[in-house]
């Protein structure tokens, strides 16, 4: 049986065509014809597919177009995992994103949501799978920020580029406020939160819960 090793460092099959191009001068006409036929077998990249590029805000475009491009990119990204998402939450998420990018409320100089930050957010949400969904915000740099509030306690997670997360927990005890913070790859988020009773934040009935 053939197994696939899943590597953190991603490789692209597309590299093979670059290799073929660089080797072409060394290939016979017959070999080039074989290579051409093999390439012809490949389905073309779908034209409806999302671009892998993060749309960069352009100073030449009006604000509403830059905001639209950023929103469209993350909605298309969401479609890539939509089969794993609850449809109600997906609709709510899009509504929150639309509100965050309302041109009428937009602060000049802020960056719209970054595709890489949003990809980190989706990975985190699909892993921790919270029953209670967070309120969303944006950092100045366009990183998505999610917040859960239980009573006076608060968990805030910033989803960074390159699959990293930063989180801050604020817990109110009788003897005062305690804060915990973490900075880790998104793969370690669940592990990092585990010692602070994640259900305190993610459960549907937080008001009945004691402090972690």
């Amino acid at each position: 049986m053939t197994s696939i090793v899943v590597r953190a460092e991603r490789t692209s099959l597309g590299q093979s065509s670059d290799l073929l191009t660089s080797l072409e001068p060394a290939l016979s006409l017959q070999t080039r014809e074989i290579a051409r036929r093999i390439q012809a077998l490949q389905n073309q990249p779908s034209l409806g597919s999302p671009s892998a590029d993060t749309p960069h805000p352009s100073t030449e475009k009006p604000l509403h177009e830059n905001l639209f491009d950023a929103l469209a990119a993350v909605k298309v990204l969401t479609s890539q995992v939509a089969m794993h998402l609850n449809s109600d939450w997906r609709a709510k998420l899009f509504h929150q994103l639309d509100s965050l990018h309302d041109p009428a409320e937009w602060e000049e100089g802020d960056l719209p949501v970054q595709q890489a930050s949003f990809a980190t957010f989706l990975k985190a949400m699909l892993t921790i799978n919270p029953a209670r969904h967070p309120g969303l915000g944006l950092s100045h740099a366009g990183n998505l920020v999610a917040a859960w509030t239980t009573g006076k306690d608060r968990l805030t997670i910033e989803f960074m580029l390159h699959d990293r997360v930063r989180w801050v927990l604020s817990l109110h005890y009788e003897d005062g406020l305690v804060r915990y913070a973490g900075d880790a790859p998104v793969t370690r988020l669940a592990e990092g939160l585990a010692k602070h009773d994640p259900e305190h934040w993610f459960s549907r009935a937080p008001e009945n819960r004691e402090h972690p």
Partner: protein
Amino acid sequence: MSEQPYRRPPITEAIIEIRYAAPIEPVHLERGDVDFRPNYPFQQPTVNYGVAVGVSASTGNEPVTQVNRSDGRRLSSMDQTELILLWPQSFIVAQLAPYPGWDNFFGRFARDWKTWKRGVGYRKVARVGVRFINRIDIPQVNRVIEEADYLNAYAKLPDEFGPVIAYGVQAQFLPDDKGCRLTLNSASVPSPLLDHGSVLLDLDVGVETNPPQNDEDIYTLLNEMRAKKNAAFEACVTHRARELFQR
């Protein structure tokens, strides 16, 4: 009504393409913005470049470069999952996940095709095609996925090579004697989920030889091609994969 067999179909993209024998005039593409605006409020110009370089085998001749530019329109719904692509050579209706089922998707195609034809009139059809791109997200066990537990189409390789880090398989078939061509692509792809590996199963069914020219025959053919695509998909996945689509 056709049945949606899976609670969570792994379809990331479904596409119906009608390709023309001769290009459509640009004025019709621009008109599409207006005609489709009620259902596709977001509209963007899109450009496709094709570059061909001809190099003579004999020395001393300059390479000949040919650049083909094709201007099209990409129209999308509010949530970006329903798309139309208007190219000079083709009319494409696409659906990103979540896939709403064939009845819904095909109904949208029929609605939009009718709208499109009202503007451009009859044009000779050169190809009718249906393409479904599936991504199967497989849970890792000790950082390894066993794709053979989930797929029947994969690269069979000698055990001496050890675990594979990436693969791609391509094949073409003639699933009937009516001119249908099935192109299958399967490959490992980066997974959008943590602790998973993903494999792509891309199935394209098309007819290029004497494709139908009237709407009823096109609709009949699309439904037949969808059935062939479904049969191919079911043949390519295992029971364990089907369990993933029901969770």
